[in-house]
C-alpha cells in the first residue's frame, strides 16, 4: 500500500494547528498578564525582560500541552499502526486520514502523540517531587541552621552522605523491580510524605496558638487533607479512590525526592545561618517568641527569594533526572511515552532512523531551558529589590 506524505510546509502548519488549545491558553494568559502587570508583583515584573517572557511562555506552553494532551495529540500514545512502521514525518495514516506529523517509531506509534503525552508524565512528577523535596529540605534545614551545634552536625552528615553518592548509582540501587518486592519504597514514602503534614501543622500551631478556634480548624484541615493524600500515596488505600499511584511510580517519586532533598537542605541551612544574625530575629527572640515561630514566620519568609529561584532550577534538574531514569530504563514502563524512554528507544537506532529521536530531545531541552530562563529572570528581579 502506498502511503501519502505531507510536505514540509504541511507538517509545520499541521503541528501549529494541533496545538490550537495551547495557543489560545497562552494568548489569554499573555493578555491578562500584560493588562494587570502592575498588580501582579514579582510575576508581573517578569514581563519586563525578554528572558522572563520567554521563560514564562515556554513553561506555560508545556503546562497547557500537558493539560490539553488528549485534544492536542491525534492518536493514542500506545496505539500501534503496523503499516506505519518507521514512516518519515508527514505520513498520512490511511484509515483515519490523520497525519503522523513527526513520523512513527520502530513499534509504529505516532511520535508526535507520544511527545505530547510524555509532557503529562514529566509535568506531574517533576514539580510534585520538587515540592516534596522542598518540604523535607526546609523542615530539616531550618533547625540545622538555626540551632547549629549537634543537630546541625548530624543532619549535615546525613545530607553529605546522600550527596556523596553519584545520582546514577543511587538510582540503580533504589529504582529496580527487585526493590519493589520489598517494603523499602513504602518505608521511604512513609518517612518523606509525613514532612508536609509536620511542616503545616507546626506552621499553624506556632502562629495561632493563642486563637484555639482558628487553630483547631486549620489543624483539622491539615490533618484531614494531609492524611488523605498520605493514605493514598503511601498505603495506596485512599477511601475515595481518587489518589492512587502505581508501585513503580511511587518508587521513582521516592528516589527523586531522596536524591534532591539534601540539596534543598544545604541551601535552606545556609540561608538560615545568614538570616538569623539579622536585627528582626534578635527582636523576636527578645519578645520571647518560640524558636519554631522565629524559624517559620521570621526567617523563612525572608529566605523566599533564593528559594523560589532554586525551586525553578530544581524542577528542571528533576526533569533531567527523570529523563536519566527513562534513558536507563529504570522504573518507568518500557512502553511509557515519557521523554527519557523515548530518547533511549530511538538513540539505539540512530544509524537507521533519526526522526523518532528528535521530538523528545527537543521537548526535554526546551522545557528545562524555559525553567532555567525563568529562574534567571527571577534572580535578576530579586537582585533589583
Amino acid at each position: 500500500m502506498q502511503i501519502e506524505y505531507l510536505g514540509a510546509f504541511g507538517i509545520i502548519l499541521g503541528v501549529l494547528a494541533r496545538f490550537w488549545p495551547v495557543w489560545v491558553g497562552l494568548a489569554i494568559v499573555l493578555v491578562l498578564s500584560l493588562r494587570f502587570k502592575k498588580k501582579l508583583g514579582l510575576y508581573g515584573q517578569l514581563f519586563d525582560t525578554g528572558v522572563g517572557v520567554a521563560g514564562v511562555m515556554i513553561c506555560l506552553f508545556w503546562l497547557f500541552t500537558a493539560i490539553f494532551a488528549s485534544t492536542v495529540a491525534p492518536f493514542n500514545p500506545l496505539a500501534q499502526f503496523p503499516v506505519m512502521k518507521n514512516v518519515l514525518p508527514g505520513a498520512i495514516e490511511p484509515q483515519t486520514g490523520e497525519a503522523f506529523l513527526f513520523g512513527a517509531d520502530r513499534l509504529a506509534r505516532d511520535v508526535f502523540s507520544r511527545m505530547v503525552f510524555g509532557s503529562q508524565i514529566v509535568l506531574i512528577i517533576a514539580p510534585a517531587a520538587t515540592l516534596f523535596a522542598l518540604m523535607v529540605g526546609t523542615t530539616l534545614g531550618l533547625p540545622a541552621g538555626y540551632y547549629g551545634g549537634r543537630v546541625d552536625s548530624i543532619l549535615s552528615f546525613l545530607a553529605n552522605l546522600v550527596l556523596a553518592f553519584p545520582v546514577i548509582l543511587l538510582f540503580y540501587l533504589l529504582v529496580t523491580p527487585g526493590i519493589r518486592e520489598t517494603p523499602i519504597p513504602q518505608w521511604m514514602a512513609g518517612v518523606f510524605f509525613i514532612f508536609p503534614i509536620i511542616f503545616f501543622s507546626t506552621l499553624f500551631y506556632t502562629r495561632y496558638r493563642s486563637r484555639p478556634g482558628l487553630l483547631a480548624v486549620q489543624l483539622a484541615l491539615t490533618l484531614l487533607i494531609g492524611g488523605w493524600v498520605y493514605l493514598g500515596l503511601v498505603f495506596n488505600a485512599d477511601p475515595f479512590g481518587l489518589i492512587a499511584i502505581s508501585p513503580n511510580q511511587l518508587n521513582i517519586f521516592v528516589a527523586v525526592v531522596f536524591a534532591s532533598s539534601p540539596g534543598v537542605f544545604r541551601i535552606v541551612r545556609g540561608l538560615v545561618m545568614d538570616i538569623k544574625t539579622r536585627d528582626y530575629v534578635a527582636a523576636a527572640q527578645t519578645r520571647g517568641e518560640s524558636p519554631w515561630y522565629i524559624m517559620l514566620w521570621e526567617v523563612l519568609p525572608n529566605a523566599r527569594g533564593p528559594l523560589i529561584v532554586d525551586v525553578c532550577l530544581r524542577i528542571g534538574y528533576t526533569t533531567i533526572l527523570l529523563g536519566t531514569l527513562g534513558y536507563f530504563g529504570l522504573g518507568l514502563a518500557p512502553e511509557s511515552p515519557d521523554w527519557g524512554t523515548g530518547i533511549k528507544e530511538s538513540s539505539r537506532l540512530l544509524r537507521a532512523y533519526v526522526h523518532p529521536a528528535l521530538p523528545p530531545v527537543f521537548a526535554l531541552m526546551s522545557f528545562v531551558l524555559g525553567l532555567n530562563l525563568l529562574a534567571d529572570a527571577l534572580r535578576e528581579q530579586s537582585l533589583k529589590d
Partner: protein
Amino acid sequence: MLSFVLRRLGVMALTMLCLTLVVFFLVNLEPNLKKLAISQLDMRSSSEQLESWLQKNGYRENFFVRYGQWLGVVQKQPNVDPGTGRAVPRFSYCNEPAEPRYSGILQGDFGCSTKFKVPVASKLFPALGATGILMFWVMMVMVPVSLLIGVLAGMREGSRTDRTLSVASIATTATPEYVSGVIFAVIFASWLGWLNGSAATATREGISFYNFTLPVMTMAVYGIGYIARMTRASMVEVMTQQYIRTARLKGLGFGAVVVKHALRNALIAPFTVIMLQFPWLLTGVVIVEVMFRYQGFGFTLVEAASNNDIDLLLGCSLVSVFVVLSTQLISDVGYAYLNPRIRVQ
C-alpha cells in the same frame, strides 16, 4: 590546617563506611540475591537449586559477618565440598585459595566479579584508566572554553556579548548528556558523517579524533554552561571593585586591567566549582560511556548494577564515593590556599 585535613579525612572514612554498608544492604536484598543466583545458574533452575547455590557460596551467612569479610576484619571461609568434605575455593575463576584468610578491602582485595568472572581489581582499574583518559580530554576542552566564555561575558556586564553568552550558557545547562549526545550524533555522525557515533573502537585500537570527539564534546557541553556562569558572576563582582577603577583611572588599558588585575581574583570561585563538578561528571561518564559504548568505569558500573555483581558494584561505589569526597576536600583546601582572606579554623 593539618588538624582540619585530618578531621576531614576521618569524616571521609566514616562516610565511606556508612555508604558501603548501605550499598551492601541494598545489593543483598532477597530479590537481588535471587537475581544473582539466576544469572549464575540458569533461568530454568528450581528455587531449591538457587537456594543451595546461595547457601554453598556463603550468601546466607549473617549480614554483618559478610560485611566484615568484605571489609577484611572477619575471615573469609572457603566452600566445603559436601561430597568429599574438603575445602574448595569459592570462585575458581578468581584463583581464590581454599583456606580461611583475612582478605578484604583493608588488605587490598576487592573480591571477585561474578559477571566478568575475573577478580574485581583486574576489571575495575583498567576501566578507571580508560575513564581517566576520557575525563582528561573533557577537562582539557571544558575548562579553557568555559573560563573564556565566563571572562568574556563578565568583562562588560550587560553588553550584547554578555547577554548572548549568558543565554548560550543557560541553554547548555538545559542540555543533559543524553540530549546533546543524540543531537551531536545526528548532526556529526548521521548527516555529515564526519565522526564516529560509537567509541567502541577506542578501547581496542586506541583513541583518535574520529572516534573520541563525540563523547568528549557531549560531556563537556553540559559542564561548560555551569562553570561559565560561575566565572561570569565572579568576574562581574571583581570588575566593580575599587582597585579595578583605580587601575582604569591611572590610565591602564581595558585589556591590561582585565588580564593583570581582574583575572587572578576572578578565577578563585570557578576553581571550587570545577572541583565540585566531579560528582556530576561521574553521572555524565555513565551516560556517555553507555551511549557511545566506551568500556570505562561507567560502563562497568552499569554492567555490575544490572547483573547485581555484588563485589564489583561495591568496588564501583567505593571508588566513586572516594572521588567525590576527595575532590570536595581538595576544593576546600585549595580555596583556602588561593584566597588568603579565608582561613580555615
